[in-house]
């Protein structure tokens, strides 16, 4: 070890800093997800109509409650950066860990790109709606602001996790209260009579029957996709055993409330035939109230939600990439920590051009529609593959280290019911995805098969097999 480095930092090693509390964990989880209430969830309506969207909201809510319960138990015990990647490494094995790590990076980077597209689209809408710009002039603003949003948030992440997630607390809370304020202003008690559920729902509101309900499950995940990201903060929270379960479960409650309000307000304000294809449905809902204040509120809420999500995605994708580098699943260069800011700075910088590339190409318009649903689909697929790993992980975790054999920060109730429910719902969602995006599903599975072969043949020789298991646990049962 260099004496210069030791003298400069006062230590012979460097690591991420434990500076976060439960509110930061909440802001990380809800921040990533809440944008799903402002855009994306409404594609469930395109797949199956408004009633299908509500069923998808509850079924997906059940799926993610199981995810949150399982994650809270495992992460409060495996308190290290990398989240599900680290869990897989300790509980299943290296090949599963490598795949799960890539699912995470792909899911969060695609989601970050989708968020940046939304920011670009919102800036365009603002220029046209508030600034009087022509459609051509407004269109020129989208791509620069897609890029700018990624760069500013990457800089924030680069310079420290405490400020990054403190910003997320503020903008996520604002976005959530914007949803509540919209409900308060248009609800039946407001006397405005703006909600037209009876009129809109009379026109065949379950157009594809139960098959549509099944198909809607694909985008139903968008109501909650990313809540499992709270795990990535495990190495940076002061008390993982308390902060992770508390932040994750309160985050899940916040999201269920927000999802139901969003469905109720949007389906009452916008005819579902249009709502199903809207890029920014909550902003459109704000516009349709006829109130300038609500329109501005929903614009700011949408922008804050998208920025909070991209911010959290940069945080999570970089932690997963960093952890894989630290264990030599990827080149060790990515496992570096900044000596001043204590962030995984190389992983953050490396993922920036990838997010920008997806954001800018995703903004390409085909027949007047941006390719947002394609970007979202790839993010959902990567997330779904990750959730499918969780039941296997949980069953092995309880079998290898039964209750009482190791200290757990949190023990989730009713095991194995959440595990079996999660497995069944993942299978159902795979069927739903294959109905509309079967080719995307095959493409992403082919990618993971090829990359797994590469890992086994070329990369695994570099993995530090002895160093990567750091938990002070007894030998597992059966080994």
């Amino acid at each position, binding site marked *: 070890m260099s004496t210069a480095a030791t003298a400069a930092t006062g230590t012979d090693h460097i690591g991420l800093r434990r500076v976060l509390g439960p509110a930061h964990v909440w802001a990380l989880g809800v921040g990533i997800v809440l944008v799903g209430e402002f855009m994306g969830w409404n594609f469930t309506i395109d797949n199956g109509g408004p009633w299908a969207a509500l069923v998808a909201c509850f079924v997906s809510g059940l799926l993610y409650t199981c995810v949150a319960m399982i994650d809270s138990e495992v992460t409060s015990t495996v308190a290290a950066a990398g989240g599900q990647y680290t869990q897989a490494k300790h509980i299943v094995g290296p090949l599963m860990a490598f795949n799960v790590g890539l699912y995470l990076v792909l899911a969060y980077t695609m989601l970050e790109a989708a968020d940046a597209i939304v920011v670009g689209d919102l800036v365009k809408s603002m220029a046209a709606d508030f600034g009087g710009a022509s459609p051509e002039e407004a269109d020129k*603003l989208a791509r620069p602001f897609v890029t700018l949003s990624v760069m500013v948030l990457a800089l924030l992440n680069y310079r420290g996790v405490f400020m990054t997630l403190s910003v997320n607390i503020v903008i996520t809370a604002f976005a959530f209260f914007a949803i509540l304020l919209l409900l308060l202003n248009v609800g039946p008690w407001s006397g405005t009579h703006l909600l037209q559920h009876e009129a809109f729902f009379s026109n065949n509101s379950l157009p594809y029957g139960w098959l549509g309900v099944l198909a809607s499950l694909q985008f139903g995940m968008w109501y909650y996709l990313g809540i499992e990201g709270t795990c990535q903060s495990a190495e940076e929270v002061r008390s993982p055993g308390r902060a992770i379960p508390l932040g994750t479960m309160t985050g899940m409650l916040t999201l269920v409330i927000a999802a139901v309000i969003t469905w109720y307000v949007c389906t009452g304000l916008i005819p579902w035939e249009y709502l199903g294809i809207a890029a920014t449905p909550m902003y459109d809902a704000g516009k349709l109230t006829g109130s300038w204040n609500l329109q501005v509120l929903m614009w700011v809420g949408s922008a804050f939600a998208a920025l909070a999500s991209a911010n959290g995605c940069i945080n999570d994708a970089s932690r997963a990439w960093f952890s894989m580098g630290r264990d030599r699943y990827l080149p060790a260069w990515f496992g*570096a920590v900044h000596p001043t800011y204590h962030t995984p700075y190389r992983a953050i910088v490396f993922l920036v051009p990838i997010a920008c590339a997806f954001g800018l190409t995703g903004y390409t318009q085909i027949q007047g529609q941006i390719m947002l649903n394609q970007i979202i689909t790839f993010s959902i697929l990567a997330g779904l593959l990750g959730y499918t790993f969780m039941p296997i992980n949980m069953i092995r975790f309880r079998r290898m280290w039964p209750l009482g054999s190791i200290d757990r920060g949190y023990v989730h109730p009713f095991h194995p019911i959440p595990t079996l429910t999660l497995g069944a719902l993942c299978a159902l969602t795979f069927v739903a995805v294959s109905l509309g995006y079967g080719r995307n599903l095959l493409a992403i599975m082919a990618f993971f098969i090829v990359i797994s072969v590469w890992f086994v043949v070329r990369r695994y020789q570099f993995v530090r097999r002895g160093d990567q298991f750091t938990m002070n646990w007894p030998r597992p049962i059966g080994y």
Partner: protein
Amino acid sequence: MTTWDMLANAAWLVSALIAIWMVVDLLKVGKEYPEEFLTSSREGQE
């Protein structure tokens, strides 16, 4: 050049400046500190 063009150019410029700053800092840190120190982080340790 309209106000909107200027706003778009400003966004590109700020993005470029941030990118340059991060890359320069990344390279500077790499030169100032030995690689084994920068990659000395261990799982679960502060």
